[in-house]
């Protein structure tokens, strides 16, 4: 995202956090030491559930395993991005993991683990069609990273009817 926009968002989020009794210094990064930090894992787990509803296995144990696999592949995908993109994504995830940032960006009142699926999807939809390009950027980043990481796994291909590479 544009550096200027991020600064603006940073200031706005800082104000919200200050009012809420938090402090920017308490924001944990979303991406740290080459993999998703706890903040990033929380966001991607629940965003993944919402974006991939209908593609993920319905059985709870299988779904949990599929989401774990998704997070591993997000790690690999993000590790291959250039530093500027990793940094932007880290900021996005850290904001989404705070209550103020989650409300401001995703319009989601409840915390990720307790929010109902439909609530998270509503939040994503509000980002997707927002008049603020920053929120649309955030939605597309989550959409594209989740979709790429999930469907890069050959275990998802049978449901797509995709046979995979030809042996040569």
């Amino acid at each position, binding site marked *: 995202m544009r550096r200027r926009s991020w600064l603006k968002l940073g200031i706005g989020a800082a104000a919200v956090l200050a009012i809420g009794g938090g402090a920017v210094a308490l924001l944990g990064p979303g991406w740290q030491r080459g993999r998703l930090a706890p903040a990033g894992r929380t966001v991607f787990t629940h965003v993944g559930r*919402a974006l*991939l509803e209908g*593609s993920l296995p319905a059985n709870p144990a299988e779904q949990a395993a599929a989401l774990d696999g998704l997070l591993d592949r997000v790690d690999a995908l993000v590790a291959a991005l250039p*530093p500027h993109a990793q940094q932007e994504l880290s900021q996005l995830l850290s904001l989404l993991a705070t209550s103020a940032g989650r409300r401001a960006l995703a319009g989601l009142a409840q915390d990720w683990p307790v929010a109902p699926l439909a609530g998270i999807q509503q939040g994503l939809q509000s980002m997707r069609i927002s008049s603020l390009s920053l929120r649309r950027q955030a939605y597309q980043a989550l959409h594209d990273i989740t979709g*790429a990481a999930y469907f890069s796994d050959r275990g998802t291909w049978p449901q797509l009817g995709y046979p995979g*590479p030809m042996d*040569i």
Partner: protein
Amino acid sequence: MSRLPDPIREGLARGWRVAGGPHGAVPDRLACDVAIVGSGAGAGISAEILTRAGLKVLLVEEGPLKTSSDFRQLESEAYPSLYQESAARKTSDKAITILQGRCVGGSTTVNWTSSFRTPAATLDHWQRHFGLQRFGNDELAPFFEQAERRLSIGPWLLPPNENNALLRRGAARLGIATAAIQRNVKGCWNLGSCGLGCPTNAKQSMLVTTIPWALDHGAHLLVETRAERLELANGRVTALVCVPASGEGPATRITARHYVLAAGAINSPAVLLRSQAPDPHGRLGQRTFLHPVVLSAAHFDGKVEGWRGAPQTLYSDHFLETQPIDGPIGYKLEAPPVHPVIFATTVTGYGREHADLMRQFPNTHVLIALLRDGFHEQSPGGSVRLRGDGSPQLDYPLTDFVMEGARRALLSMMEIQFAAGARRVLPVHELARPYLDWNEARRAVAALPMKPLLAKIVSAHVMGGCGLAGDPALGVVRPDGVHWQLQNLSVHDGSLFPTSVGANPQLSIYGIVNRLAQDLARRMGGRDAILA
């Protein structure tokens, strides 16, 4: 893994001079006649011509040397290892995703083989508006012919895959002409995974043609090595400073009689910007063009399997040729390959709606429209600038002029898909949904807000930023490719083009650079050399 012969590994075993990354440390200092930054279309052609002329050539590539043995046709491996920014390079507002190669062979290693000469109408425009009198169709023809012979560019004789055949069938029902695309392949297996690296070495990319030839004849290749900046003094380049792409290790200082930038139309301007190259007319990095692409997906009752078979074999220039080049923006229509990751990220929506689209994957047909940017004053393209860390980014404002073209393009593609018998059609836009008939689709798309980050826009053709011009006020380089202010520096890649090409640009780069490189070799006292 491919069990076929791997000519690159065989070359390495023969003793090719390759350093960097796993191929060993790069010396602190190197000297050559010509230092070339990049190893894609322009770099490869330049390397072969200059080596043929008897000059000592050194190529510097930021990406890795991957070979057919590495090409396992997997998106999860190809995007991170072969593409700029892991195939997720974006314009600064994130509204356009840019696919560009970053490996030995550059974009030619991962492109879809479509080969078009520069359209005559484009050359006419350059002659009229940019003082490029020597860029006539007839004058360039021999240079295109040589490139076509050298790279086995010719007609594709197998039947098109269903994805392409549907373009032809739908267009024919509407009286819209389509034609065959020439491809640069030899012994193609019709696999459909060109974008993931060709595992059979059938694609005649720079990776398997010019670069091996140059290496066999004494050229030197540095890989996983980033061209950081040029040192300048008295209107000349005095050295090229490179660093390991990993960021760890000592710098290398390369001295040469002449330097060639061929790093692509984002990275070539970036090297000049980092070098604080003279830019008295404010042209450097300006007028960067993308052929912004919009997409339409359609579901058919029958299987399409767009991942299978030669990816792009038919096209239509109807919406370029039926209107003036400098009027409302026109567009070229093609049918791209689809694979799971690229499809999942491109197709809009989430949850059950997205899952439903993914399940329709084998029956999905995709069309793309490439908008011909740069010919109208309201289509000035974008500009390359540097981030704080020195990496380049492209600002590309999607003007209303461009976005209205995108709307017309979506309409044209949907109409063709319905004419071909589509059951439902989804223009790729966040506010669109699959439409069941052409009238409903037409009304809906006429009302869509055509805004960035709502309409999905992608690009695989970055052009301009170091434009050719006959007048220093109009461009960055002279008609012979030499920088207007730096006498021993040339630009030999898609950055040269003063507008977009209006066609997939690889053959435009091959043909035009072929001429520039022959002229350069002659001026440097080399033997006369042609490609084929």
